[in-house]
């Protein structure tokens, strides 16, 4: 059973995604803040982490807990945001621009968890985020 961890400050987004993904047989957990999400990921790494960039605490963009996950258990990442943050060191991942359509987001999640193979390695000088072309 595939698993997704949703990290989003908006409880409604978490509720919608949990409801829809669970109905599709995807085990879904959620957190409102990145640090809390990373703690959940350490407990049981999901296949995919969907992270809204607003969930990152003001304390900084500390992704080191993510890097500490064993490479073969490191989840894929889907980042949601209004703007791609220039200069920030995000681990490699896909990017979906907000505001998004839920149908598009669900499809994207299914595509990503359907993909095989481990996540590209990440470090502090991470691979760039793949941003979809604007339609």
């Amino acid at each position, binding site marked *: 059973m595939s698993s997704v961890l949703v990290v989003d*400050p908006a409880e*409604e987004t978490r509720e*919608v995604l949990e*409801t829809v993904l669970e109905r599709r047989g995807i085990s879904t957990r959620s957190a*409102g803040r990145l640090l809390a999400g990373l703690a959940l990921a350490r407990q049981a790494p999901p296949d995919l982490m969907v992270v809204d960039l607003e969930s990152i605490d003001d304390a900084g963009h500390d992704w080191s807990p993510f890097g500490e996950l064993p490479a073969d258990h490191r989840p894929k990442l889907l980042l949601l945001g209004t703007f791609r943050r220039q200069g920030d060191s995000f681990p490699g991942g896909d990017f979906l621009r907000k*505001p998004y359509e839920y149908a598009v987001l669900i499809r994207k999640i299914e595509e990503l968890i359907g993909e095989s193979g481990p996540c590209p390695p990440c470090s502090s000088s991470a691979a760039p985020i793949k941003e979809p072309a604007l339609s």
Partner: protein
Amino acid sequence: MPTLFVIRGADQGTRFELSEAVLQMGRDASNSIQFHDTEVSRHHAEVRRIDGDYVISDLHSSNGTFVNGQRIERHRLSTGDQVQVGCTLMLYTGPAEETPEELAKIVSIATAAEIGDRSRIVRSFTQQEGSRIFEFQSDGPQTSWLARARSNLQVMYRTALAVSHTLDIDQLLQRIMELIFEWVEADRGCIMLFDPASHVLQPKVHHTRKGMRADQRISISQTILDYVTERNEGVVTSDARQDDRWDAAGSIVRMGVREAICVPMKGRYDVVGVIYIDTSTSPQQMLQHGATNRFTEDHLKLMIAIGHQAALAVEDTRYYSAMVQAERLAAIGQTIATLSHHIKNILQGIRGGSYLIELGLKEHDEEIVGKGWKIVDRNQNRISSLVLDMLTFSKERKPELAAGNLNATVGDVLELMRARADELHVELQWGGDASMPEMIFDPEGIHHAVLNVVTNALDALADRETAGRIEVATQCCRDEGLARIIIADNGPGIPAEQMESLFSPFLASRKSHGTGLGLPVSQKILREHGGQIVVDSRPDHGCRFVLELPISLPPPSPETTAFSPGEEAGIERKTDPGG
């Protein structure tokens, strides 16, 4: 903290805080200070902290870096310096020399008893008496030089006074012109300023001596204007030829002589304009009084000094206006950004709810439809609250006073919030003061004010790993004439740097779920009641909001239940204990 404040250009209104030891500025997004100005190079300049000061260095930019109008390679910045890159003009403000705490240690106000001060006042002058230092005194020996010097000082003193308290440049220039005409026997005069955009001199004010036609045309030689502004020198001119100027048989006596003074208005950084005055000596005057110059070297020197003073005032006024405009733009930008963010989140919520409704309808699952509808409904309420907050904040209104029970109003808020508190696993404790009397207040307004504060407390406790708790209580303090509503939480508290702007609209922290209007609205409502909000917060120890409002008891008549503010006569009302 040292800052660069953009007063002109695409980023007008942006304040860049120089919080790091080295900051690069340029058009590229990788710079700490990024400009949206196509005239700025990708990596244009660098600001580096050296020995407590900031030094700006150009990074071989295409269009150069300028400080106070001078192109620089490297320059140690001082407060008030203007830094220009591309079309972007910024004002540098350096770090405070001494913090208020440091100053308070050095300078203190003490009673005579504390310091054993035996000083007494031996002489005093009023401000008006003090300013008479420049007046001519006939009772002492006066050399002509001293008399002139005193007169000049008086003119400068009055000029300084004239330019010191106006923010309207035209009004300022008019005052300067009037002052000049009080002091010098000129016939006509005008002040021209360079248009900041076109850099062409444009007349701003003109003045003529009393009794002269005001519509006389003043023609000023372009050559003289160029000389004055380019060389930054004041000149006295005369249309008499040097070699035969006072030849009684010459044309001068037939036509008379026109003399003029033209001086630059040199400010801190640039020549901002010129002051011009002229006077004519008629043939008759020349024959009667002889051929003497009416504008002397002293006149010129003093006009140069006045020109400098006026230019400084013009620059200050312009910068002040630019700062006000920039601050206004920044505030508008902040408002739009916060509102857009909040509305975007509401729309995202509605989209989510709608998606669930659509899914539920497609799959004939009422539970999903119900879940979706709840989300849509919640977001409808959020948009209603936002609109209500905006209206409450923006409109001058008087509270709709009515007799009511404060405990009931606060209790209603808690009932409303209990479901959300349960969702967030936050314990909501309530302790209403049983001695709280029925009093006059705006129940809806106070409900709104309390709701905003409780909502903020819940937001602060959301996603916390520790058990959240909000304690709400009321207190009737009859001896102080105050009713208090206390809302305390065990959340993360408010960072010290945010305390000052806590009640400023649209300055909600990024973490906050709110619009940044909640607390300003609550404060407004309390102030409308003659009350206030007192906040006590320590990071990691939670927050305590105390909403205080004066106890206003209803009149004894049992029939009266509603009042308008104008009908309060006869109601016992204890106002702010501090007042």
